[in-house]
């Protein structure tokens, strides 16, 4: 696994949560945003619609809209303002780009 983007410095004594990222089983903590859950397990949230380059959020305050992620069932969520929940299944690869 690649080194994650975020590093926990405090508050790591919280209940563990399991989620799946691109089919891989991963761990996060209760109270993590979806963005934190993804970036403590990797370095990307999604692909830009206008190229294949990965994106990993930017403002973290719900202004830039860069961190919308997709669940396996197609639901779209803004990762910086949504808390992670047990069993969430997230797809960070873009289906559109992968079909090219």
């Amino acid at each position, binding site marked *: 696994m690649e080194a994650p983007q975020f590093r*926990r410095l405090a508050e790591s004594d919280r209940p563990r949560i399991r989620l799946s990222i691109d089919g891989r089983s991963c761990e996060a903590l209760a109270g993590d945003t979806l963005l934190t859950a993804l970036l403590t397990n990797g370095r990307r949230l999604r692909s830009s619609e206008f190229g294949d380059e990965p994106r990993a959020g930017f403002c973290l305050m719900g*202004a830039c809209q860069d961190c919308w992620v997709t669940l396996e069932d197609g639901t779209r969520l803004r990762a910086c303002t949504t808390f992670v929940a047990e069993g969430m299944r997230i797809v960070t690869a873009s289906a559109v780009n992968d079909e090219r």
Partner: protein
Amino acid sequence: MNDRPPIVIGAGPAGSRAAATLVAAGYSPIVLDEAPASGGQIYRRAPSGFTRSYRALYGFDAAKARRLHAAFDGIKGSIDYRPGTLVWDLKHGALHCLSNGRSQEISYRDVILAPGARDRIIPFPGWTLPGIYTLGGAQIALKYQGCAIGTRIVFMGTGPLLYLVAYQYAKAGGAIAAVLDTTPFAAKRRAVPGLLRGGSTFAKGLWYVAALRARGIIVANGIRPVAAEEKDAAVSVLAYRSAAGVERRLACDAIAFGFGLSSETQLADLAEIPFTFDPIQQQFLPEHDISGRTPVRGVYLAGDGSGIAGADAAELAGERAALALLEDHGHEVGKPRVAALERALRQIAEFRVTLEAAFPFPVDIAEEMPDDTILCRCEAVTAGEFRSSAHALEADEINRAKAFSRCGMGRCQGRVCGPAAAAVLAAALNLPPERVGRLRGQPPVKPIPMAVVTVHP
């Protein structure tokens, strides 16, 4: 007024104080806030289950944070508080808001807009790479999630937030590669006499810089970003030019940057408040007087959403706007209190002029942006594409340039690229910045699911 309670949008310093002032006068305002808890960005609360102290979270401002939170918690039983609620349209006495996936229309007579601010950024080559965040974003990662944005971080830009966030990271044990300030040392030195009159702000700034240097962290002035470079599709190097003009490369796995703040003005725009260009803040702002009254009856402004003045001013302005609303409904309000609030607000506004001189918006970074730099990260429009559409199609106004290039048309509605795009356009056309105008706000002000919108015939 009681048939339609007053509405406060935003529950940061301005919104919290506005709501508390209305409650003290016997009203039960509706408070709509996008965040899950009150406090705004500056006094943002950690999620439940987090245990760090106020001192750890807010440092010098711990007492202010505690007071503001307590004031809001004290009125929760007296207001119609709706956290997690996005106001996505507002016009002619009706607003539309979205919470828990459901949209609702609320009719209003009086509304206090206190939507706050966001980081003001200028793109540079490579800025969309994973690992690059705003200074505010880096602060949220730490304050709200207990996380550092990387393991070797460069802090870059200008404004009070630069040193504050770097200091907070250093204190929390984050590894800092360098703090790179775009402001030349001479500009800061010239501003010292004015800064000294601004109370503790200057002292705090000096404290942060000294604390960073004491930890052996490089602090450089007068730099310009050159490019962020990638390895394995994420940031690995920041190349920059030193004040002496020497190009340097710093290894890093994260960058936090920003150049001051930009007001959230979409709702004021939809409310049809006229805007004027503020040459000191270098942004278009909705018109209002010191009481928060606007040319649109029943619409009041308070806090950083009406112009950047900081959290202390936001608290004062929130109270003042609520008192203005009460006065306009025939209430007796305490004249000495009104005078004291306005005096304090004027003092802060004067100090703001000094702060802007000490931390000038480095507009040359936008003007000299290389053509292949992505300017609009939503739609991946480069600075060159934006410039050439402006020239070829004679777009001498930013909304026309947006229509031709799609810059500013994406999901963020130009919140991120808008200030820099205006500077790029003005430079390309050799016009002063106020001549190219501002991106108009459009409903919905943020993305909402199609399914929630009720279509009116």
